[in-house]
């Protein structure tokens, strides 16, 4: 198992390198002159040239890429923003936790509600509980998150005054600032989770081993949650991984509405300003976070399904055996 984890971690190296090269090249092919953006339309030609030299834009793409890779991967230096001069690593260190907390809160709400909703729908297939659950899921998919955000703000902040409508806080008390953004952001994920859970559970509860468990007199609750849900979890966990990845980079609208300075807003602003180092640094960190999230998802597979765990272990043993036999 440990061997598998190490192997996956090592695989992250070419992935991150690949992401870096692709993002670097994409940004350099984007139309728009960073020097002109920094200096504005009133800059003289000489100022523009001097700025391009200062930013290294007068060098070839290959040289710039090599310099950047050297700085990032050999010296662990993401550089500083061309526009604001702030250190990118420390800015990401400030912003990334907010995005991560928002993503985790969103996932907790979405899967905390979505899985029970899906189970109810599956175990009451074609009954009113199923219909209600699926209508809620449909509404969840259809509602735009910016609209839901404003509705929640009006109810919980303006009218009831229970939760803050915007801003960031620190410590445990600061978590309340993530509740409304999380609720607004989770509608789509909750709906997808409910539908996925229903579909997986319907497959599982028709399986022979579920019938066997019932015939052995296992209580229905145990049949559903212990035998059924555990086996239905694999596709749900897969979906959770991709949802988490999407939440890491795609919460720009929610971050804007709730004045929550996270990674989405940071990278989008940088793209608009052609602030290459910020876009590249931000993307590298997101790629690392996403790769780690995917590794955790794979490990969760092993935790819920002994067959997958056995496969990981067997692969390691097989290699050892082959090596021993020469």
């Amino acid at each position, binding site marked *: 198992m440990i061997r598998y984890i190490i192997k996956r971690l090592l695989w992250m190296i070419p992935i991150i390198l690949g992401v870096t090269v692709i993002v670097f090249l994409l940004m350099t092919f984007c139309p728009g002159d960073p020097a002109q953006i920094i200096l504005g339309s009133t800059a003289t030609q000489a100022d523009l040239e001097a700025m391009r030299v200062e930013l290294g834009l007068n060098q070839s793409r290959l040289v710039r890429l090599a310099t950047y890779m050297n700085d990032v991967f050999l010296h662990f230096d993401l550089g500083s923003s061309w526009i604001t001069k702030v250190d990118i690593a420390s800015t990401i260190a400030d912003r990334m936790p907010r995005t991560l907390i928002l993503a985790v809160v969103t996932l907790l709400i979405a899967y905390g509600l979505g899985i029970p909703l899906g189970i109810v729908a599956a175990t009451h297939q074609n009954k009113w509980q199923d219909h209600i659950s699926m209508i809620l899921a449909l509404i969840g998919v259809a509602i735009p998150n910016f609209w839901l955000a404003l509705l929640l703000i009006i109810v919980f902040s303006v009218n009831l005054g229970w939760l803050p409508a915007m*801003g960031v806080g620190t410590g445990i008390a600061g978590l309340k600032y993530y509740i409304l953004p999380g609720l607004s952001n989770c509608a789509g994920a909750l709906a997808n989770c409910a539908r996925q859970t229903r579909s997986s559970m319907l497959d599982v509860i028709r399986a022979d081993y579920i019938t066997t468990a019932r015939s052995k007199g296992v209580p229905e609750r145990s049949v559903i949650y212990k035998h059924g849900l555990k086996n239905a979890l694999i596709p749900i966990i897969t979906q959770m991984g991709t949802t988490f990845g999407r939440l890491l980079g795609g919460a720009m609208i929610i971050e804007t509405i709730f004045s929550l300075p996270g990674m989405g807003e940071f990278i989008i602003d940088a793209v608009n300003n052609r602030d290459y180092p910020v876009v590249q640094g931000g993307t590298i960190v997101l790629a690392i976070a996403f790769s780690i999230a995917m590794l955790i998802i794979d490990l969760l597979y092993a935790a819920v399904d002994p067959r997958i765990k056995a496969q990981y272990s067997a692969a390691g043993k097989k290699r050892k055996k082959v090596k021993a036999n020469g």
Partner: protein
Amino acid sequence: MRSKKIWAAILTAVMSVSVLAGCGGSGESSSQTSEPAAVEETEMIGADVEATTELTDNTINVGYGTAIDSLTPFRSATARNAPYLDILYERLAVRDSNNEYQPYAAKSWETTDNGYTYDLEIWDNISDSQGNAITAADIVWFIQEAKNRGLITNFSKVESVEQTGDYTLQIKFSDNRVGVFETLMEDTFVVSQAAFEASADEFATSCVSTSPYVCTEFVPSASLTFERRDDYWQDIANMPECVRPIQKTVNYQIITEASQMGIALETGTIDVAIDIAASTGAQFVDQTDAYTVNLQDGAQGWQVFFSGAENSILAENEALRQAICYAIDADGLVQGLCSGYGTPMWDVCAPRLIGFLDKWKDEDYYTYDVEKAQQLIEESGYNGETLTLLSSSSATASTLGQLIQNYLDAVGIKVELNAVDMALYTATRLDGTQYDMVLGTVGGTYLSDVWSLRFDPAAYEAGDATSRNDQELADLLYSTWTNEGYTDENIDEVHTYIKDSAYGYGLVNPQVFTIWRNDLGMVKAVTGGINNYVMPSACQFTRE
């Protein structure tokens, strides 16, 4: 089948109700569409109340809609207008509400050769919050550094800057262009060279300044907190009123989403909202019991400029350019773009610019006239070619572009709207071969600055800002560059030439909404700075 229909009906009803609930808002907002165009500027509260020197222990919470990513004093021209900047750093001089320069860190200045050379004296007791004493050497360093970085054009006009004493310096300019020295004083922040060089990130996240306030907390793109210094170097009575530190604490909340700004005001999260969008600000206009709405004319306005590049059919076709101006209903733009809270324009420059002549407001400035537009189109020989309108993809620019597209379509002129992101817009807007018309929002201090940025054929590689080369206009323009040439007569000639040739057309000048809660007990709202914003730190109010 039947149950599916029932469910579908229920779903439709639920969605309709929820959409209506979400869109309803307050009743006040819906009435704004019938507001007359060109709502007048509102008089500032307490304009006749005397300036105070009495400091309070008050805290004021301010909402502002533009993200603050860095505190660095070296910033580009586009990032120099934010209201918090005037308490983050001191400038050599600051503009008051009458558009007049008041000495701030500078004590006095004079020119002995009609604007080529200025001798400037700063106060001899300036110190920053770390105790660093500021001398003329720090000012010289800042001006040289700003010149080297090329972030603001005015610094490039400095030929030399020398320290002539501990607290005196001399600045020489390459020409004696009107207003260059004044705007340079406005853009020169007083910073200790030693403190700046000791900073790891050029003050981007934490700065040391000579201002009466210290920035105690800065969360980029979220908030900025200022506390008044106890060891401030200047006597309050010597300070311009708009920068006096009357409040003890000033909290800026960055709220980029317009409706959230309104909600923050309603819930009391903020006391004052500066530069709130008209669509949201309009909701508060009738709620006079709880809020005071102040409207001021914007400092920039929106303009359309016509390409002067040879490949554009507009370059040599004056009649078609004029037809386009007549075909656009400026009052309609005021309604469509800013919910009625704006004014038409009378020049490509906004009235706040120094030199603007009030008599232009009584002239005919392409008053909406479809018949005249069609007559001019016939004269122009326009054959249905599609014109390209370049704009940035910001919400305001895109809306304005669509409105213009519709007005021109109504008189038979086909327009393709090319709304691009800000980076691409910046890269192409000075190249007239890339468009036939370009939307802009241009501001500055003096009329001659802005006109020169747009119409000086020597300013850019291919000509003026739309690749045109009109030497006659250039000569008129150059006559306004000097202090003695900046006369009403010369200014009027340039205005008339640009208007008659229709090289550019001022479209609409949205008003700036500043709203505060009445429970603040505002006694005097003080304005100033580049955009003449309300200065929350300098206002007088009764709430403790």
